[in-house]
């Protein structure tokens, strides 16, 4: 029983990170109908930037700030330069362009920082807490991870629901042409949407870095986990992305704990396939049906 509880706790922690990556994918999908296959590489770059800050003697928090800021900028630049021309074009174009970006960013990281992974410090100790004499798979750093992701979710929700900017962002995502007729500068909103998404992704990168290390290919699996979580949530729903992330985190934690940690990615694949077979548009998607 303790083992089950521990695996669940570990699952919630990793699920929080998956949820953040999923949210980054969902924000972009909702706004531009593009699955950002470069998301893993983008958060890899911003985590490397944070690593460089620490390597140069900066504090953990300065590094985190650098990652978030560079995520914001990278997201905006990517949307403007690479993605804008393929919006409203065949899906294959967007897939290929984001894959191309994936490859370019991975190569660039290898050129700048080398191919060998580096360790990344956690913000707090990763020693598990002890409750009534039982060690739990939940450390102060895990609590920080969960808290940081939750804080970002709340902040984003407030931004989207409570502010004028959020209203414009949602309008631009739901109905770009109508939004333009209300004077919303849709192009700017899409850029901002990408920037926000990349910011959330960069947070996930820094949070997961202590356990996966920082290297050009270390975050590839995060893309798969984030995509799977997003698809479980319906790819269109930010709340669904969070639920999907937590579900996937727990499921993979059980796979890792009861079967083998080497089968975690296969487990994600199995979850993805199962969901897509049952509901080709995701578990929580409004049933819009396949377009024909």
């Amino acid at each position: 029983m303790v083992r089950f509880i521990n695996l669940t706790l570990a699952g919630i922690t990793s699920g929080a990170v998956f949820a953040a990556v999923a949210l980054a994918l969902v924000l972009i999908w909702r706004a531009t109908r593009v699955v950002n296959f470069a998301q893993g590489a983008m958060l890899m770059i911003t985590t490397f930037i944070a690593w460089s800050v620490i390597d140069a003697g900066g504090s953990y928090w300065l590094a985190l700030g650098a990652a978030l800021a560079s995520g914001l900028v990278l997201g905006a630049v990517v949307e403007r330069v690479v993605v804008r021309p393929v919006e409203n074009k065949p899906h294959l174009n967007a897939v290929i362009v984001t894959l191309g970006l994936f490859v370019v960013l991975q190569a660039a990281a290898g050129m700048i920082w080398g191919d060998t992974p580096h360790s990344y410090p956690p913000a707090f100790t990763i020693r598990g807490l002890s409750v009534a004499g039982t060690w739990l798979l939940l450390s102060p750093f895990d609590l920080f991870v969960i808290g940081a992701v939750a804080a970002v979710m709340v902040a984003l929700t407030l931004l989207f629901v409570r502010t004028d900017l959020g209203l414009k962002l949602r309008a631009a995502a739901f109905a770009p042409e109508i939004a333009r007729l209300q004077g919303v500068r849709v192009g700017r909103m899409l850029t901002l949407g990408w920037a926000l998404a990349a910011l959330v992704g960069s947070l996930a990168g820094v949070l997961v870095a202590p356990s996966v290390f920082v290297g050009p290919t270390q975050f590839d699996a995060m893309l798969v986990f984030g995509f799977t979580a997003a698809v479980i949530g319906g790819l269109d729903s930010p709340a669904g992305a969070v639920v999907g992330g937590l579900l996937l985190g727990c499921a993979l934690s059980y796979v890792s704990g009861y079967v083998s940690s080497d089968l975690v990615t296969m487990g994600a694949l199995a979850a993805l396939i199962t969901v897509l077979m049952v509901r080709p548009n995701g578990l929580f998607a409004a049933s819009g049906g396949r377009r024909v």
Partner: protein
Amino acid sequence: MTKALLEVRGLDVDYGAVRALRGVDLSVERGSVTAVLGANGAGKTTLLRALSGLLRPASGTIELDGRDLTRAAVERIVRLGVAHVPQSGGVITELTVAENLRLGGLWRGDRAALARRIDEMYALFPPLAERRSLPAATLSGGERQMLALARALTGSPRLLLVDEPSLGLAPRVVARLMAVLRRLCDEDGRTVLLVEQNARSALSIADRAIVLDLGAVVAAEPAATIAADDRLRHAYLGF
């Protein structure tokens, strides 16, 4: 102030490989209702989309109050006081009624004035007030049309472009909407360009009307003249 608010000269618009409008001339007087009539596919909607900047004209000019809008971006045209109510309203169903309304006036950047305008809209369209915090998806067709109109009005536009507001609505609802449009001109001094296939309703409130056929203007007369012209009515307006 003798010049018309909207002057369109020799407008050609292509839709894909098809020329949808050819040489359209149109002038809309301040404070009037001008109807654009014609059969399905005559180019009425294309004309409105070109006026609000959604389509780029191939040639010709569009002037609002002497200012050239021919190649202006949608966002700029909105900021010059042109509001476009698209066909079947174009309310954003995922947003609430109140959010839809707010969206229409956000560009003015004056929160207090916007709140006032929204209250006025609730007074003008009571059904919207009752459902202000519900998603627009829950509204009926007539209510959506009201919401779309109200949303356009929260931006206090000088020129209101309305595309087929009667589409799919019950005659009683249509009559109410038409009365509202007329009042907007008479009482608030707004200018309305009304695209309609339902020529009878449109002519009942319009000052002037133009008739489009296959993308070209075949008549531009006072509304009463057109309503009295049997040949025109039978050939193009179907009543």
